[in-house]
């Protein structure tokens, strides 16, 4: 059930990349709202600013102008440590290239956001195993990423994103590196989690198949939202 309050509220976001004398306006005054429990897909051609928007909204990157309010809190006004702690407690991330730490086992990768935010190790291990079970990988806890398939790695990444029971999950091309069958499985999983846990999902994708599973599709072009506000 989708609640009506905005969990993400962004207005007038501007972001310019400067490289020497070259300036690229990645975001040119974006307004973007997402309601709690909503699954939103952000689409658009390469270079339109999708990933930049996701990074700015999630506090991974800074922006030049505008206002971002997440759960009633202005992220840019937080210190780096406060923002980091907030991410660890309230946000989950899924990226195209998995970005698992190769020296840690699956369960250790999953429990990492808990441990760095101060959750006791025994409790963290229990929650991590539950999260792995939730994504259908109860048997790979002790395997390192190199011993897993692409689909399994992405499931471990999703388990890591879910383990702290975040309010928002940011997914940047979560199926970009997977075949169509695995893509279907992953999207089934994300939609089930969205429905079961009432968690908010913001997906950046090129894929229509992925986007049409979302509650809403937002289309971007040249640093602006052109459809689906």
């Amino acid at each position, binding site marked *: 059930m989708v609640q009506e309050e905005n969990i993400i509220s962004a207005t007038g976001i501007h972001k310019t990349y*400067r*490289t*020497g004398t070259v300036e690229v306006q990645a975001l040119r005054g974006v307004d973007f709202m997402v309601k709690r429990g909503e699954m939103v897909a952000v689409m658009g051609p390469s270079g339109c600013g999708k990933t930049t928007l996701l*990074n700015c909204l999630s506090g*991974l*990157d800074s922006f030049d102008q505008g206002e971002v309010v997440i759960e009633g809190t202005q992220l840019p006004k937080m210190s*780096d*440590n406060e923002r*980091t*702690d907030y*991410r*660890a*407690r309230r946000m*989950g*991330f899924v*990226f195209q*290239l998995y*970005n*698992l*730490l*190769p*020296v*840690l086992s699956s369960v*250790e990768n999953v*429990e*990492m*956001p808990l*441990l*760095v*935010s101060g959750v006791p*190790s025994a409790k963290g291990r229990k929650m991590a195993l539950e999260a792995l079970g939730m994504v259908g990988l109860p048997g790979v806890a002790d395997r390192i990423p190199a011993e897993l398939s692409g689909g399994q790695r992405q499931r471990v990444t999703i388990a*890591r*994103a879910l383990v*702290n029971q975040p309010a928002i999950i940011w997914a940047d091309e979560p199926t970009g590196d997977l075949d169509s069958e695995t893509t279907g499985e992953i999207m089934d999983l994300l939609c089930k989690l969205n429905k079961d846990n009432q968690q908010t999902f913001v997906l950046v994708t090129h894929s229509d198949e992925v986007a049409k599973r979302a509650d809403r599709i937002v289309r971007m072009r040249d640093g602006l939202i052109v459809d689906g506000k």
Partner: protein
Amino acid sequence: MQELFGVSLTTIAIVMLVLFGIVAIVVVTLALRNRIMFKLGVRNIPKRPVQTALIVFGLMLSTVLITAAFSTGDTVVFTIRSLATDALGNTDEVVAAPNRETAPDSGYFDYALFDQVSEGLSGADVDGILPVIREQVPLINPGPMLSAPSVTLFAPGPEYDDYTNLTVVGGGDASLSDLASTEGDIRVFIDEDTAEDLKAEAGDQLILFVGSEPKPVELAGVVKGASSGGFSFVLMTLESAQAVLDKPGRINTIYVSNTGGVLGGAKYSDEVEERLLTLLEGTGLEVSTDKKETLEAADLAGSALTTMFVGFGLFSIAAGVLLIFLIFVMLAAARKSEMGMARAVGTRRNQLIQMFLFEGVVYDLMAAIVGVGLGILVTYAIAGVMASVIQGSPIDIRVHIEPRSLIVAFTLGILVTFATVAVSAWRVSRLNIVRAIRDIPEPVFKRVGRGMLATGVAVGIFGLLIFVMGIGAKQGAPLYLGLALIIIGLALIARWRGVRERLVFTVAGIALLAWSLLPTDVFESIFGDEMTMGIEMFFIAGVTMVLGAVWVVSYNLDIILRILVGVLGRLKSAAPVLRAAMAYPMKNRLRTGLTIAMFSLVIFTIVFMSVVIGANTAVLSDSDSFAGGYDIMANVSYINPIADIQQEMADKGFDPDDFEAIAGYSTIPLKIRQANTEGEGEEFKDYALNGVDDVYLDTNTFEFALVAPGYDSAVEVWQAVKDTPGLAVISADSVPSRQSFSVSVGGAQFTLEDVYLEDDALDSPIQV
């Protein structure tokens, strides 16, 4: 007490241990509180064994150098100390007549004086006093007709047995009482070396000479542990010596042993010497504290050697620090994406720093342990080289390593690496999360913030302060470093003001190069010629020079590339390869600069050491300047002097025409002081006067460091010495230097005042 750059090694060891303890406690606490980061850090180590081995090898270099430097210093100290302790045993002060060695018949005094001294020392920190006769005598074994030209006749009183444990070579104890005469015959012990030289065995009849008179003695045994005061000895009872030398009831030496054992007694030497001098007033005898002085000289030599090794080793340590920094920058680059993700999911910057620290500390510990082990091996190798260089001399190099030195080397290696890892980890933690996750490079042009202005101003002001301090104190090191820091500070301020990076660092680099290569005469014309400079100048100038050169090169790589392509581009196949090869270094200026700096420091050290070794070899092989043009030197004992060397050689069958020159000189120890001086200069000090013959004055090729007005050449000076009674030349060792690049150990105690080796000439002849 050994020192490093003037600071006691014990103090350094304590400070290092405390710092190491703090670091260890902090790291262990952090690891216990943050196990996931600890796991993340250390799990990389076994996963990449080749990389781990390379990192440990790189990190251990500085520990190897520090260990070898300190351990070699310890070995030198121990070896020199052994000279004193082997020769003197428990003896701390020796009472004897001055210049006794050159006047064998004088210097004897009544045995009653020994009793007076013994009584007068009651209550002092003295645990033994011994009456002795010492003489240098020739000893002959008439059987195989072998002779030892100068052996110490050592005849102590019966108290000797209370202080000494003599052992017979081959087994069994011996004592002085074994030599008691029964039927008027003289029984003696000799040492192993003398026995070997004479091929003498117990029961042999030997002959020693007193003047030209032969005295038969019976060899009672070959012993060791005699502490005779010489390297080879013939030991007999005091009564026997008095009979042989015809000195009934007389002795010529008193040995005094202080409380505190072989080494610990030296600290009472000043106090005991003072009491002895009071007791001996009016007797004409003097007190020598050779052991204390030798022990002090040992510490000085050890400190000098350690400082020199560490001074030269600083270049390699600096290169090691750059290597460590580079290793961690590259490790970070390899794991950039993982670190970005770790940050995204909630890892704080300080946790990222901890992760690298944990990994670094494990490498660090492994490197320090291996480094100390290899450093000890290097010490043995250096000792072997030293032993081969002084082969044939009575000095026996004994490797000795103080636990204190290993503590300093181990902890210093750990702390230097830890500090470098901490700085590199801090730098690495300042990554941009998005760029890290996507593994895209940092932008080439970074905004110059106020941090650069603050750093520039701070560096510049600090540089100005120590520059002014250096001028005020006439110290070269702070002056030199100060101006270099001012240049660096100004460069950073110029960058903040928006001046282009290439222009700023090229100009600053050239300025640093010009400053570090400034000729001495230009330097002296600006700052005067009274600046004191030590071995640290090599390091400061070397690093300044390398930094300047690296800035110039790394900020002008594109120009260098264009020139290279222009020159080599004619070879069509070389051009694309060259462009590709240069593109990577140009893309990451920090890594390129660090790499160039690191290799530059290594090459700088190699070139510098080659030049030093080459210059030394050239000096030592130049017999004209080093040995005055002479090829062979021989010494004779005062007991058997040669009155006419030419005649003596002719008598021995040498043809004088086979020699270009046969010159001679005699040495007389005396006291000397500079005329018309005040304070410490008024005090007479020991000096060795060399009286040379006319042939020496006519033929030697020694040059002079400083000459008084009126002489145009060395030959003129030598002729003037020959023609003018009372005119002398003095060793350059007795002239102070404004530069403290070298430390003279055991050299002349007497030094001239108001004249320096760096002066152009003497203002006028000096009277002593």
